[in-house]
């Protein structure tokens, strides 16, 4: 139990605006990174971040110090993201993902295709293009560093599903990042494959 966190929570409950602002300043960056990546939209993430902190303020009475305030906030944030994704239209994403499940393990190139130094912008853009199911698992596992058991608990899925979603995300990112660095004018590998098949 972290006494400092309990003190911050107590001050927030007592209506100390400076304590709540300090809490926001400490955790907003990490949570905004998480939320904007999970949702793939910065404007939407701004609204959700606001909801997260308003919700946290309301629930502060329920904070008992069993975890750190950071972990507690993180959990609120993940739940808000999942609710947001669900309400945004899980059906369309699910339809897309069912197609993705057919994505084969296809080691098409004998050389590493992803650049050794991936730019942050390229990676963020590619992550935003992932279907939301595998994106959530990938972000929690590869970006946030949760293990598969924690990812499974957080998302309410099995560990096996977490592993397969992370794998799917990585393979999709490999393709996206490879396509991004193709030389201008070079044909897409799938196009070449299609032309050869004709």
């Amino acid at each position, binding site marked *: 139990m972290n006494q400092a966190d309990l003190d911050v929570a107590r001050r927030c409950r007592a209506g100390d*605006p400076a304590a*709540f*602002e300090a809490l*926001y300043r400490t955790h*907003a*960056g*990490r949570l*905004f*990174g998480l939320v*904007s*990546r999970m949702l793939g939209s910065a404007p939407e*993430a*701004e609204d959700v*971040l*606001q909801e997260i*902190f*308003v919700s946290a*303020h*309301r*629930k502060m*009475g*329920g904070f008992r110090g069993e975890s750190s305030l950071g972990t507690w906030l993180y*959990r*609120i944030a993940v*739940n808000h993201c999942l*609710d947001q994704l*669900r309400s945004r239209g*899980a*059906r369309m994403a699910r339809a897309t993902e069912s197609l993705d499940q057919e994505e084969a*393990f296809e*080691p*098409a*190139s*004998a*050389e*590493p*295709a*992803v*650049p*050794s130094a*991936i730019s*942050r912008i390229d*990676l*963020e853009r590619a*992550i935003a293009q992932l279907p939301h199911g595998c994106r959530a698992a*990938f972000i929690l596992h*590869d*970006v946030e*560093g949760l293990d598969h058991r924690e990812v499974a608990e957080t998302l*309410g899925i099995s560990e096996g599903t977490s*592993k397969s979603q*992370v*794998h799917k995300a*990585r*393979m999709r*990112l*490999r393709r996206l*990042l*490879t396509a991004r660095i193709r030389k201008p004018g070079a044909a897409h590998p799938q196009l070449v494959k299609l032309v050869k098949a004709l």
Partner: protein
Amino acid sequence: MTCDDAALLIDDHVDGSCDPVTAAAVGRHLSTCERCRAVAADLSRIRAAARTLGPVAPPEHVWAGIQATLQAQDTEAPSAGWRQLLPAAAGFALIVSGLSWVGMRLPAAPVGVQLAEVQADDQFQQAEAAYQTAIDDLELIATEADAPALAEPAFVALHASLVDLDEAIDEARERLSVEPDDEFSQDSLLTALDNKVVLLQDAVALLDQDRTDIEGLNP
């Protein structure tokens, strides 16, 4: 080890989570298979790059929005998590009985009175039960033999939304089976139940409208 075998283990290998025997077997395959080695190298690069993605500073207006919302809330009555849904749970039985077609079939359940009298610890179970009763009643009505059929687009949209909500309900109940007092899961469950009742009410109202229209055509 074949490439297909390697495909199943490549992520564990990249994560360093294989046991030593498996790690050695994958390593041997990678040493002889250029293509799988290329995949492993790419996945390692992606994983390493992902770990470097750090915090993102939100725009300053987000904090201003939070402050404004909290100040506005200070002037309103306080709420407490899922407990703010209690009046909705209590009222649903009455709303259900207020629908003309439904009203002929449903007894009004005095849920509100019961909710007001129970202790806080029991309120969550009472609210869940109230929602479930409303859902059961609404589902019964919607599936009765003499209920008119919804037009296909409406049925498809309704079915898809119900599948989503049922998934959310199942997930929340699963989490609550492990941690019954978890406030986040309680929130999620009651919110999903609330949404499902509203959706079913809309569906029954649509059916009611269709039924009225049909009766108007065939007096």
